[in-house]
């Protein structure tokens, strides 16, 4: 009896949400390793792809041009934060989008629905995208390079940065929910990603370059400024008072995303066979 207890504990942990997720990660890695040469190259390319934004910034500054009010390494810091936020969300949960689109198209989404766990959890567990870890490495490299060229920041700035960065990831999750929901309605359309990526592009540059109307849209309606502009400003000690409204907006965005996703799932009637 005493020997069985640890085994029960292990079983309990293994079937917890985290345990399931780790199992999903292991399975995804194992299947991707079947073509490990391609995997390593894809991951490397994912990392290099992430440098395109910072390279544009470098070239702009190298030509003597600049974003008003922002130094080169401040912009690179912002872009590094943006890439880290993407680097966390894409491998760990953004995969629910392609997973949902693909499964709905094939009809295998139904198999997830009959599992005795939340459909959202199952969609995340089966969608770990190992190649996208390259994005995270790329983001960390840009962030680190920028930090080296900027003066050290006090602890209070770092704390505000970490809080805002967490909200940046939450916002990404909100986006993922909206896209996954759309993927159920808009069958087989992988270009949903492009819609999202294009909107996200606004987040890769300082908020101040946009017009006042766009700044308001990017802060209160689709709070893309939270992806990088606000966390970078917090780390540099320049955060403005609108940040609280942006945080509130991101929570509303996440809740709306959850409502949207589950409403679409409830209305889902199988499309495949």
């Amino acid at each position, binding site marked *: 009896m005493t020997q069985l207890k640890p085994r029960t504990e292990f079983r309990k942990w293994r079937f917890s949400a985290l345990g399931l997720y780790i199992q999903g990660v292991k399975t995804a890695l194992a299947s991707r390793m079947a073509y490990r040469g*391609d995997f390593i190259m*894809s991951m490397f390319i994912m990392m290099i792809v992430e440098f395109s934004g910072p390279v544009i910034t470098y070239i702009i500054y190298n030509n003597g041009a600049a974003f008003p009010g922002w130094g080169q390494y401040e912009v690179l810091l912002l872009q590094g934060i943006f890439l880290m936020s993407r680097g966390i969300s894409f491998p760990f949960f953004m995969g629910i989008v392609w997973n949902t689109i693909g499964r709905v198209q094939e009809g295998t989404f139904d198999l997830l629905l009959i599992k005795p766990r939340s459909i959202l959890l199952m969609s995340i567990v089966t969608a770990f995208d190992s190649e996208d870890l390259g994005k995270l490495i790329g983001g960390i490299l840009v962030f680190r390079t920028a930090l080296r060229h900027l003066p050290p920041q006090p602890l209070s700035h770092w704390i505000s940065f970490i809080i805002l960065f967490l909200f940046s990831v939450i916002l990404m999750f909100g986006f993922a929910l909206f896209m996954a929901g759309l993927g159920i309605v808009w069958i087989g*359309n992988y270009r949903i990603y492009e*819609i999202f990526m294009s909107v996200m592009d606004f987040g890769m540059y300082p908020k101040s370059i946009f017009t006042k109307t766009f700044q308001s849209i990017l802060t209160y309606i689709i709070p893309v400024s939270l992806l990088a502009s606000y966390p970078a400003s917090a780390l540099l000690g320049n955060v403005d008072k609108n940040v609280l409204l942006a945080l509130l907006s991101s929570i509303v965005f996440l809740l709306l995303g959850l409502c949207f996703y589950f409403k679409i799932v409830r209305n889902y009637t199988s499309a495949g066979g």
Partner: protein
Amino acid sequence: MQSAVMKRGDNPPRFYKAVITATYKENFAYRNQMAVSIFVQPIYFLVHYFIWQAIFQIRDQVSGFTFDQMLLYFAVSSIVEFLNWDSSGHMLQRLIQTGQFITFQLRPVSHLYFSFCQKIGHRILAFLIEILPVMCFYILFGIRFVPAKPFWAVITLFLSFILSFLIRYTIGIFAFWFVKTDGVSRAVLLFTNICSGAFLPLNLFPAGFQKFLFYLPFQFVSYVPVRVFIGHYELAGMTMSIPRIVFLQAAMVGAMFLVNRALWYLGIKRFTGVGA
């Protein structure tokens, strides 16, 4: 086998026309997917607009470009990108990976030309669904799509259409060696996008890198057509007349075709398939 099929009246022009029509019709069923560009491209353009507007607030010119010229560059470059887009490399890789390529080996048709016709059919549809509405958006934004030399602009766009296809198709041929070429494809596509001037005008890059870019085929995919459209070519400190750079582009298309055929010849020997 080939002659037997030809005798039945399936002459190549009719066959290729049928492929173009079939691809057009097939993709017409998924026109909504294509129409996503009508939403996406204006957003990308707006981002560029704000970036360059902010930059030009403190400078009148960047590497010889005024604000209006920079917007024209990005607008024409995006249209060229739409015209040139194709998935021939990916399709070929899928056929080789799944073994379905064997069915093409049994057909009396060159897969290269078959794939090129598919691209034509696909892009004709894209012209109506993606390109025209996006051009309308640009025109509303005050961008004037009037080429400096219309004749050369048409020639360069046509050559860039063929060259981009040859580059992507050549990447697909690597599947004969690697089976799965997603990594290689991504690498080459990224390299192509950077080196073709799709992200930024090439003359903004450091001088040494511009010289390197000058000798690669990628500038002929996007940078050269846009420059010909604008009416002035310059890279790595070298200026060239429009007919001369278009002639060089044609030579590059010829060279790329030879590379493609050589790789095909080597790759096809490695292919083995079971069943048909």
